[in-house]
């Protein structure tokens, strides 16, 4: 029995209803998002389940996973930090910020801290170029923007995030921090 279908039948129904009945393949990306939000990555078994629902082969699902940079086929760090170092951010100190952050954490871009908690990656433009330096964080099922950053500010935020993950009482907060990035 298809686990995905059993566990999320309502959600799957809703996704199927978005597209014409003869275009079932279109459910692939929404289902991949659904799985990744729950598991943090997409396993081979899940790909197989998605393939069944979408009426395509597992290999076809895997090639979709491989094509899009936001889909992961392996678990990563608990907190994934993605710093934009693209054209416009680079002109406003994003690279210095990235290097500063990496040296504070003792890792290089593309690496994960030894405890498996934090990873840092460079990414392309995130449509926040007027609030550089900025990063996007993946934590569990959430994806949040952090703008107008300094190394100190990011480290403070990281400390509080890690503390809240370690204390079982307080759940992780899941909202965007619009750190002073208001629009007038």
């Amino acid at each position, binding site marked *: 029995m298809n686990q995905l279908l059993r566990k999320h039948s309502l959600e799957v129904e809703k996704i199927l209803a978005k597209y014409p009945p003869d275009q079932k393949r279109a459910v692939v990306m929404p289902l991949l998002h659904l799985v990744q939000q729950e598991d943090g990555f997409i396993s081979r078994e899940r790909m197989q389940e998605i393939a069944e629902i979408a009426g395509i082969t597992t290999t076809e699902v895997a090639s979709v996973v491989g*094509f899009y940079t936001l889909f992961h086929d392996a678990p990563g760090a608990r907190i994934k930090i993605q710093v934009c170092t693209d054209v416009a951010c680079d002109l406003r100190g994003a690279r210095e910020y990235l290097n500063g952050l990496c040296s504070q954490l003792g890792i290089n871009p593309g690496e994960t801290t030894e405890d498996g908690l934090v990873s840092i990656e460079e990414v392309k433009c995130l*449509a926040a170029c*007027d609030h550089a330096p900025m990063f996007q964080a993946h934590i569990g099922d959430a994806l949040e923007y952090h703008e107008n950053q300094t190394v100190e500010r990011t480290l403070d935020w990281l400390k509080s995030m890690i503390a809240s993950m370690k204390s079982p009482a307080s759940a992780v907060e899941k909202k965007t921090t619009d750190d002073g990035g208001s629009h007038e």
Partner: protein
Amino acid sequence: MSDLFLLRHRTIAGLNQLSIYLENGGFKTWKKAVTAQKPEDLINEVKASGLRGRGGAGFPTGVKWSFLPNNIWPHYVVANSDESEPGTFKDREILEYNPYQFLEGLMLASYAVQAKDAYIYFRGEFWQIARRFDERIAELTASGYLGDHLFGTDYSLRIHTHLGAGAYICGEETALLESIEGRLGQPRLRPPFPAVEGLFGLPTVINNVETLTNLPVIIGEGAARFRSVGTEKSPGTKIFSLSGRVKKPGNYELPLGTTFRELIFTHGEGIINDAKIKAIMPAGASSALIPATDVALDTPMDYESVPALGGQLGSASVIILDETVNISDLVKDTVHFFKHESCGKCTPCREGTYWMSCIIDRIVSGKSKKEDIDLLLTVARNMQNKCFCALGEFSTTAVVSAIDKFRADFEARLES
């Protein structure tokens, strides 16, 4: 700031709440269109307004709508919310702060071509924004603005969101359609154009978020009102995303035809540390590098004047470079961007962006001889007019114009 057609949330607090949007006349135009106007009326008004697509190509919106054949049904409308061009952050502001005006625009476009289903394609990073839209669409359906038999008529409309997953190429309209259909985001051969064979093989209109957000103004207040701002051939306002080495980066909604000088020095308050301005990229990473001469600074930003400078207005993502920037570093960033985003479908782009990135890395690291500059130029020139879609072409624009106009910056990096 003069007339605001788009960033109206800047003067009306809370415009991203339905009650406040309604208090300010929201969805009146929609109700009137569905209950009292013919689809052709809308198309004619948009044609008369001279609105041109804000997603990059500047194609007249009303004309594009009229290409849909009336003997093939259903029709679809797709909103392009993929916004991924480096230096562009205007659609995101609309989506977060003035979402209902955008939705009303999407609904008007759907009615104009009699589509009963419309899709919004969000870039994957706009995950939270997309979630909010799911809520808003449900809210509008519950309030009777979306759904079946709207206002007691025969017309029904449903809007669906679709989330991408990190691929710049999905902003290209045919790759976007492939992505909705559950395939790799790779462009399709054209013709057939999406107006005839688009989403699920059916006639489809694809418009940018900013384009659609103009529609409640044009249809509600009239083409003449829209034309009272901007130039004859480029009417209306445009949101200019200003970034790079300026004191006050941000989105500025200004009449089309405003000069670069006004944008950079009046609104952007000039260059950081009052350094000397060096070059302008008017259309993000896909731009040509335009030396910031007095002539360039006094050029009006519209669809005709920028090409006369050897550039494009594109999505109007204006990136400013000053004298502290070595242009070869900038080119390294643009080349890496396109190498990362090449979809791999055609050889000139896949291989060309790879080789350009190897050569520019060598130049920037100071391990090159003079020949490498010409080699980079040759690779870029050889790609031009050979790529399957515009991305490949875009990847060469900054390279060729930079070596042409700022060769000394590359030479300064050579091995001595």
